[in-house]
């Protein structure tokens, strides 16, 4: 074990300004336990009075070695680890990983499974944005929004539970399709949500969007220009709020996104401002767009199988095992040894609620991945925080941190 060393200023010399050593500015820890850091994040703040001179994030408190653990598991069994990455977007993580596996081994996905995947990941996107909005309101002292958001989020978690038996760690999307077909209660539940939710979004907007107290806290705070955002690898709503029209669902459609009609909310194409308010409003608009996709996918939901028929990669249905010798062998082989993947590497990415969620997957010819790397969007989105908080007040730092919508499980992996 490492010895606990005393903190010396030498460590921080290249991070903070020289004024910190003359006593002109103050070094202060924010976190790791702090209600508005959205998890265990420590920020080393250099303050001049109440103005932030430097804000240096210190991450890794939630590092659990998911990438290393996945190397020791078969492709099927490694999937449960992906739920634990970004715990606000579990089906989205499953989708990213399964698409990577499918691309590596060359596996097909039936249309019905694709539509179910789209519905569930879009619902999960709404749930994730609801947590964003709730926590955002909470950080800006609008307590009631938090309660309303979690009320609607519960409806989505109920739908996920209906399909998979789990509210959060679903592992419902599997390589080659989904675990099982959705139950018959699924459609009425989603229809009910589609009916109720638009009015609720209007309610949130009535509470927040034109609220003068809130606007005072948001407009002109934490301005992120497109150039800086791209160079820092910022993606997702944070990038679109800065005026860059980039959404992987439109740019490189996957899972049949090309057949759905939806817009990508982009702010400030001309002014290229990208402040905290813009990031907030992009999230609000994405509620409506995601709901549009869910409704279209549900209307189009094709009949048919929900898993690939390729038995070398997809376990046979339970009913087949009792009557077919081959099915029994496949079942046994897949759940003990697993399936081999070629000795090659691929990179596949999806649009998560936070940005580009990429999976770098490398096979070594055997049943276990040689290397899995999750390119998680929060990691890069957080790295820009020092640039956009300089010169703002500590209270504004809280608003900016809430607006870039980080999840620490996503950052630390």
């Amino acid at each position, binding site marked *: 074990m490492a010895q606990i060393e005393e903190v010396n200023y030498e460590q921080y010399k290249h991070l903070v300004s020289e004024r910190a050593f003359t006593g002109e500015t103050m070094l202060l820890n924010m976190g790791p336990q702090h209600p508005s850091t959205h998890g265990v994040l420590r920020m080393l703040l250099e303050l001049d009075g109440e103005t932030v001179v430097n804000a240096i994030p210190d991450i890794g408190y939630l590092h659990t070695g998911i990438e290393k653990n996945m190397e020791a598991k078969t492709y099927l069994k490694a999937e449960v680890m992906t739920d634990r990455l970004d715990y606000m977007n579990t089906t989205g993580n499953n989708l990213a990983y399964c698409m990577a596996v499918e691309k590596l081994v060359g596996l097909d996905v039936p249309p019905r499974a694709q539509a179910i995947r789209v519905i569930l990941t879009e619902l999960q996107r709404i749930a994730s944005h609801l947590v964003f909005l709730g926590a955002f309101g909470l950080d800006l002292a609008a307590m009631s929004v938090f309660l309303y958001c979690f009320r609607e989020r519960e409806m989505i978690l109920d739908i996920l539970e209906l399909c998979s038996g789990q509210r959060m760690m679903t592992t419902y999307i599997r390589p080659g399709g989904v675990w099982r077909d959705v139950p018959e209660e699924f459609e009425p539940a989603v229809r009910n949500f589609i009916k109720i939710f638009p009015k609720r979004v209007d309610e949130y907007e009535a509470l927040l969007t034109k609220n003068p107290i809130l606007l005072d806290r948001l407009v002109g705070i934490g301005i992120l220009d497109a150039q800086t955002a791209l*160079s820092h*690898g910022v993606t997702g709503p944070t990038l679109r709020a800065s005026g860059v029209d980039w959404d992987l669902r439109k*740019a490189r459609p996957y899972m049949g996104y090309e057949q759905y009609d939806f817009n990508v909310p982009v702010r400030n194409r001309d002014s290229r401002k990208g402040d905290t308010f813009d990031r907030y409003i992009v999230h609000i608009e994405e509620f409506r767009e995601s709901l549009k996709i869910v409704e279209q996918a549900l209307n189009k939901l094709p009949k048919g199988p929900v898993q690939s028929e390729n038995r070398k990669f997809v376990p046979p249905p339970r009913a087949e095992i009792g009557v077919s010798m081959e099915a029994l062998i496949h079942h046994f082989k897949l759940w003990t040894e697993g399936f081999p993947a070629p000795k*090659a590497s691929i*990179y596949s990415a999806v649009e998560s609620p936070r940005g580009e969620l*990429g999976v770098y997957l*490398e096979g070594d010819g055997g049943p276990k991945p040689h290397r899995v790397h999750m*390119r998680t969007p929060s990691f890069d989105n957080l*790295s820009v925080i020092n640039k956009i908080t300089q010169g703002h007040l500590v209270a504004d730092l809280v608003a900016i941190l809430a607006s870039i919508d980080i999840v620490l499980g996503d950052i630390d992996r």
Partner: protein
Amino acid sequence: MDKKHEKIVQALQEKFSATYEDFRDEVHVFIKAEQIVEALTLLHDKYEFELLSALTATDYYPQQTPRFHVVYQLSSLAKNITLQLRVPVNGDQPKVPTATRVYDTANWREREVFDMFGIQFEGHPDPRRILSPEGMEGHPLRKDFPLGYEEPQFTFNYDDIDLKKIYAKE
């Protein structure tokens, strides 16, 4: 390989005598470590690869030449294409020049690769570990780093494990 990639790969081949691989519509170009910054600058400035999507590495232990590949996954928003650069490096203490001057995101990503694989990035402005605690020994994602686990403490082995804890040695 489609037409959009062909031009770029040709340019890289001419300038850096690079080789390439093609797998499932992805193009992986192999570049020497000392030329990587030049190659990234060319791709960023001339071919509009504005986004460094991912920067990671992979370990081929016990193979020593090359032991690691450093992987740069680039995206071009303007052209909507991706390109992967791979830098093979040899030995246990490899060094690669830093890409922080081309992409700001390389700062944290290179810190992560250093932390996990022990690959040094020369000229990095902030060469500290990022995820593991400071003062930790070893680099967890290397293949010769054990997966390891902590033995659970039950009633029957409580004292045995208690003796191994740090506070027992004081």
